[in-house]
């Protein structure tokens, strides 16, 4: 059994950084807290690359199958011999792949922030929070116990909350952080119930054992779970759907996506790390982690598929109408995660049918690079222009050549133009969808074209469109350019990684073959959409406005994000607050509090009666003492017979 215990070092490193910077950062290392955080994470990154090389190329494979290895296990809480909450480390293809992604993107963001956040008053706090996030995300990835996943899941949520609200003097940032926290908490309730259901029927919280039991059709656990039902749906479907709701909340799937665009109030590097590359794919990762169980239940997979596909389409349509560049990217993130979700949904476990699973993980992998690149590029642009709005930009290509090229590469990658990274992964997803569900394939194809359209709308609006009016103050320090260059190289190169032989649903290498004829439709549509975008947005003109006017009602609806926020507000303010909130508040105020106040006032009255005994005079106390002794003496000598 190969030894992977050193992987423990990877999450503990950022934890130590968090503690050191959180406690002493503001006082002692005000200026070099960034360097401390970055160097510490660099070590983590190197260790995770070592682990990945060891796992994928040295000893992870036994008989051609990548093994699931429990590298470390510590029982934290034991309820019964079978049910316990463990802190463990699981090493399998997806966790190792995620290790590399998270540490690498996080490192890039750390480096970028050195320049971007320079001179901030709470610089050390920022790095402390980044480290906390990195620690929680790594813990989430490596979890071997589903309850451990939940613990880190919440930690990730907290660090996301802290970072969105980093500029807490801005009311909009405060509102956004609260919104993100409440919406994801609400989804996590579903996740928790799902975990409890799985734990109750499966008799364990350990993911490995759970999968083993619930994938064997004859096992008593599976039989019980498939037989038990509620509202005509089996307990298994309920449990998996609830777990998926938790994942949908974190991954911003419709209708729980409303927090993601607002989360862009946080510093831009944070958006790159948390709300583009790592945390928001936690939902996808969760479904992938439990995929063998999902595979047993077609209904739950259908939910995953249709939610994913609908979110992908909806977000792409909204993205076409937004003018805040970070919001465009946020919706594009949501759309790409939708891709990953439905790719999982159309997949099956094992062999050739596991194509969707592999494609989803592949897209997660490539997306992390080009999306964080897009966000960091947007960060560099915002750093230059001091605005998030497209209208204030334009013609920046001459002022920021490095950013321009990097952004262009990222756009080509996300649009799926060969040979950039996004092309390969998106191709696999489309292929998987094509083989299982033609409707989903259609949606995916249309969304791919939309993706190219809004990405190039963004690109042309920022870098072309009109002559720049911005006062240039240099493109930014090396710490900001270097991550862009490295990530751009990744966005070109990672598509060539033979992913299908490394990360698959069952650990066996999967034969994939690029079919040129299959690629014609998506690439053709993408090119047409790109040309359309360049026709509309390359030079400033009134064609986009006319086009918007011709789609008047629909454009307005999309611009207003299809009124989902308004529906939420209506439900909470008009229905939940008056009908549920206020009666509960009344009960709390008059009955619960009233009872407590009664107890308190009785206690206060009694103490007022007897407090005269506490005179503060020593001789009084001595008198009580002697009277007591005398009384006891009388009692024992004369009365106690």
């Amino acid at each position, binding site marked *: 059994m190969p030894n992977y215990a050193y992987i423990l070092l990877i999450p503990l490193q950022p934890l130590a950084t968090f503690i050191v910077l959180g406690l002493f950062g503001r006082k002692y290392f005000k200026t070099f807290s960034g360097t401390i955080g970055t160097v510490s994470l660099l070590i983590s990154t190197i260790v995770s690359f070592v682990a990945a090389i060891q796992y994928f190329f040295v000893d992870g494979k036994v008989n051609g199958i990548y093994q699931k290895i429990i590298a470390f296990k510590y029982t934290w809480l034991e309820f019964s011999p079978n049910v316990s909450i463990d802190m463990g480390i699981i090493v399998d293809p997806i966790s190792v792949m995620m290790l590399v992604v998270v540490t690498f993107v996080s490192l890039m963001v750390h480096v970028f922030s050195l320049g971007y956040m320079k001179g901030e008053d709470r610089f050390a706090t920022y790095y402390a929070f980044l480290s906390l996030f990195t620690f929680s995300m790594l813990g989430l990835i490596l979890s071997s116990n589903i309850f451990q996943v939940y613990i880190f899941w919440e930690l990730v949520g907290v660090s996301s909350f802290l970072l969105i609200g980093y500029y807490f003097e801005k009311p909009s940032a405060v509102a956004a952080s609260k919104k993100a926290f409440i919406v994801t908490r609400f989804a996590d309730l579903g996740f928790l119930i799902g975990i409890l259901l799985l734990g109750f029927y499966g008799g364990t919280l350990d993911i490995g054992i759970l999968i083993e039991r619930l994938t064997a059709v004859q096992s008593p656990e599976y039989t019980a779970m498939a037989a038990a039902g509620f509202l005509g749906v089996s307990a298994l479907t309920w449990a998996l759907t609830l777990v998926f709701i938790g994942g949908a909340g974190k991954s911003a799937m419709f209708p729980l996506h409303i927090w993601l665009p607002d989360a862009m109030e946080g510093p831009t590097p944070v958006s790159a790390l948390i709300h583009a590359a790592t945390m928001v794919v936690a939902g996808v990762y969760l479904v992938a982690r439990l995929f063998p169980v999902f595979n047993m239940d077609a209904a739950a997979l259908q939910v995953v598929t249709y939610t994913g596909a609908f979110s992908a389409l909806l977000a792409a349509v909204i993205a076409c109408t937004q003018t805040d560049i970070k919001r465009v990217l946020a919706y594009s993130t949501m759309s790409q995660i939708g891709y990953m979700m439905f790719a999982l949904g159309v997949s099956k476990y094992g062999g050739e049918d596991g194509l969707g699973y592999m494609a989803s993980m592949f897209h997660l992998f490539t997306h992390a690079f080009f999306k964080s690149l897009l966000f960091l590029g947007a960060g560099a642009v915002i750093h230059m222009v001091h605005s998030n709005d497209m209208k204030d930009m334009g013609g920046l290509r001459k002022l920021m050549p490095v950013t321009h090229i990097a952004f262009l590469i990222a756009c080509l990658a996300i649009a799926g133009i060969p040979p950039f990274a996004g092309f390969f992964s998106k191709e696999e997803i489309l292929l998987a969808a094509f083989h299982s569900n033609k409707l989903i394939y259609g949606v995916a194809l249309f969304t791919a074209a939309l993706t190219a359209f809004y990405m190039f709308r963004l690109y042309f609006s920022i870098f072309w469109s009109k002559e720049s009016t911005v006062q240039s103050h240099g493109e930014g320090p090396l710490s900001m350019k270097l991550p862009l260059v490295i990530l751009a190289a990744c966005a070109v190169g990672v598509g060539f990684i033979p992913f299908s032989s490394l990360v698959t649903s069952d650990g066996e290498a999967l034969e994939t073959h690029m079919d040129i004829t299959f690629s014609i439709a998506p690439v053709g549509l993408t090119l047409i959409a790109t040309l359309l975008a360049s026709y509309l947005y390359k030079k400033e003109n009134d064609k986009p406005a006319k086009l918007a006017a011709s789609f008047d009602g629909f454009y307005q609806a999309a611009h207003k994000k299809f009124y989902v926020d308004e529906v939420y507000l209506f439900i909470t303010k008009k229905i939940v607050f008056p009908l549920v909130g206020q009666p509960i508040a009344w009960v709390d105020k008059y009955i619960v509090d009233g009872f407590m106040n009664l107890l308190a006032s009785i206690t206060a009255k009694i103490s007022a009666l007897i407090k005269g005994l506490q005179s*503060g005079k020593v001789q009084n106390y001595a008198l009580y003492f002697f009277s007591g002794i005398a009384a006891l003496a009388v009692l024992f000598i004369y009365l106690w017979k």
Partner: protein
Amino acid sequence: MSDVPLSHILFVSTALFFIGMYGLFTRRNLITMLMSIELMLNSVNINFVAFNKYLFPQNLEGIFFTIFIITIAAAEAAIAIAIIINLYRSHQSIDVEDATELKF
């Protein structure tokens, strides 16, 4: 020597005890109160020695105990006087009526 009956000695110790108690309750000066407490302790010592002598002459426990009590009384006096000095420093007085802050 053995002409003195035990009851006489007990009478002396009881008188001493109540003299100490009277002093503890009536005096306001902390030093005098401390002295009164010492009187009460000594009355107890007399009891111990007397009972030991009259009832168990072959044993020595009563006398040992007396020695312990004397030792502890010395320690207690040291601490009490330290407290009194501190009280004087903060209140400029060692009158027990002046130190009544510790109440409801």
